[in-house]
């Protein structure tokens, strides 16, 4: 596809343009290759397990049982999915511009602190108004934090990967200072925290489930992000700039605004994740906010190839792996790092699979095109 395609045809017109088989072949590639890579990664991990004297089939049946096998397992997995969706968006959105932002953890903790610090001011407000306001406040803080990374990148040429990572350390130190100092609830003796949120400011569970509303918020924002990237001129411009900044500038696209806008939006989602953690789980902001969701989000975004829709199933899969970590420790006497090793194998397999695109004849549309 080029910008100047006179017919205005896009790959999405596959039904009319090239016959459904050809279109199906084209689209299958993006699904089949990651799934194959996933299976290769799992297979490689099985070899690793055999080397340490453990049974791969027992391992995978435990993962299935603890992550997806019972209704408790599903609720366990989905509870863990909620923050991962938003953390992954913080990586995936800037990635469409070719930026590798890995410091979403910083926006998560500061978004959480913002919610914890402001909650006192809303303690007599009804939840339907106050919770969205807290969400906006956290999103704003996150947007400013990661948006600053985008600004530094655009205005000063600072490498966004390093900058965002180092800023995450600063954010965590800042959070520790704030919850142990200015925002500390004097009643929180041995675990310094902000004051407890009023009951109506707590985000509850989706009715009938032991999963809080954060999951639904995450899914909706993933879908909206996909629409933004795939269905709007802003998203289109971002993809162009991500492909070739010079070309985008020549075309007159506002590259600076795109960079700052997309990093800020990603940061806003991460900040919101922090607010949801405080409102739904912790009930106050404290050091437990820095629990690594931002880093798992990096893995998810890469596995999803920065496609916001693909983030949803990938996040569920990884949350399922994490949900199974406990049962694996208890039943197989493997250390908790086992699941991290598994994630590493899958990650490497997916990265390697990038070189396979366009190399399988079966996915070539011309092979299926009706003459």
């Amino acid at each position, binding site marked *: 596809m080029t910008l100047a395609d006179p017919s205005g045809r896009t790959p999405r017109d596959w039904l009319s343009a090239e016959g459904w088989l050809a279109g199906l072949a084209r689209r299958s590639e993006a699904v089949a290759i990651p799934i194959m890579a996933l299976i290769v990664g799992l297979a490689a991990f099985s070899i690793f397990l055999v080397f340490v004297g453990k049974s791969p089939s027992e391992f995978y049946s435990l993962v299935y049982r603890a992550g997806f*096998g019972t209704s408790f397992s599903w609720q366990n997995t989905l509870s863990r999915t909620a923050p991962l969706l938003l953390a992954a968006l913080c990586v995936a959105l800037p990635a469409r511009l070719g930026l590798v932002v890995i410091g979403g953890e910083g926006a998560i903790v500061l978004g959480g602190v913002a919610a914890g610090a402001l909650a006192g001011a809303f303690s007599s407000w009804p939840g339907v108004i106050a919770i969205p306001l807290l969400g906006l406040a956290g999103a704003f803080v996150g947007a400013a934090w990661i948006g600053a990374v985008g600004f530094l990148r655009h205005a000063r040429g600072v490498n966004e990967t390093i900058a965002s990572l180092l800023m995450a350390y600063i954010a965590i130190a800042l959070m520790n200072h704030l919850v142990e100092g200015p925002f500390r609830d004097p009643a929180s003796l*041995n*675990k310094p925290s902000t004051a407890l949120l009023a009951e109506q400011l707590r985000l509850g569970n989706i009715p009938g489930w032991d999963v809080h509303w954060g999951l639904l918020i995450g899914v909706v924002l993933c879908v909206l992000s996909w629409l933004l990237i795939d269905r709007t001129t802003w998203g289109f411009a971002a993809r162009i700039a991500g492909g070739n900044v010079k070309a985008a500038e020549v075309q007159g696209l506002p590259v600076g605004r795109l960079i700052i806008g997309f990093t800020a939006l990603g940061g806003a989602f991460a900040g919101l994740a922090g607010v949801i953690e405080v409102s739904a*789980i912790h009930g106050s902001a404290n050091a437990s906010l820095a629990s690594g969701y931002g880093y798992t989000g990096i893995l998810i975004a890469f596995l999803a190839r920065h496609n916001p829709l693909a983030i949803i199933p990938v996040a569920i899969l990884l949350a399922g792996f*994490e949900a199974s970590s406990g049962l694996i420790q208890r039943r197989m006497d493997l250390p908790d*790092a086992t699941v991290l090793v598994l994630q590493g194998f899958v990650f490497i397999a997916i990265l390697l699979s990038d070189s396979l695109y366009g190399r399988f004849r*079966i996915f070539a549309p011309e092979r299926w095109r009706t003459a």
Partner: protein
Amino acid sequence: MTSYPISRRGMLKGAAALTGATALGTLPQIATADGHGLTVGFIYVGPKDDFGYNQAHAEGAAAVAEMEGVTVAEEENVAETVDVQKSMESMINFDSASLIFPTSFGYFDPHILEVAPKYPEVRFQHAAGLWSADEHPMNVGSYFGYIGLGQYLNGVVAGHISGTKKLGFVAAKPIPQVLQNINSYLLGARSVDPSITCQVIFTGEWSLAVKEAEATNALADSGCDVITCHVDGPKVVMETAAGRGLYVCGYHADQSPLAPELYLTGAEWNWPGVYTRMVQTVLDGGTIDNFDRGGLSEGYIKMSPLGPAVTDAARNQFEATMAKMMEGGFAAYEGPLMTNTGTEILPAGSSFVETDIALESMDYLVEGVIGSTS
């Protein structure tokens, strides 16, 4: 033109492998925990071989695992997030655990309080002593030990051994628990020689090896010659201090293997004693007290065996002080006592005994401690 080096046959093979893998995934036949007996869960916030807080609890779990009719389910590195909530529920759902010890302070509120009402038949025992009958469920209990007494005894030995009359303390966060340990360590040393001081450095985190090593080196550079600490895993502090030729006093668990010659003694948790007692209560059909505490005489804490460098004078005073503690009602904090910023804590003639509730909201360092809480 693009080449397609991978044939359709290769693809078919891949598809076959995929089918096989899917079939593998549908074999959920796993034996659940034995239907008989009692399953006890233990959850740790860090690695269970950290030579510290978590190892001390894991040693308790190991002792419980030896008991007749008891199965132990353990999980390490469980974060104080939804992670611990689901770990507890997973132990209940998959292992039929009916007694769970989530051992980190931060597990209590909101996590244990969130899960406990859903499982009224399961008992949740939390290490910290926060339970109160007015606000918390009856199937939750809390327990903790007066380990400040152990740090006082560390201080007694350190006070005898120190040549520079300057002790060092590597601390995690300036919270009451930690401050009490620092103050007790100094007061123990001052019971030997009132001119002794103690320099404290806070690292800001429970587990941050690099800063712990830096802090230890800084204490060594400033002339401290007996080091102790309150961080989750004292291994780095012990090894760094011993590497600099300094004496060390342990904390949480026995660290003498890390510095056999320079290890004086250590304030250890005695979780094997506490946990086997509690599990035995359940096995006998009884109910564990919701609120349980103790010090040396109740078997909550113990001291590491004295090391080879400990002198006879130190040993005598150590044993005499310990004997006094065993009688109960020991007061490490006696007036007149000032903070290191000059505020009076206790006037002459008054004291805080080990069980005094005022000790649990401590927010000061006593006179003689060099350092600041903020």
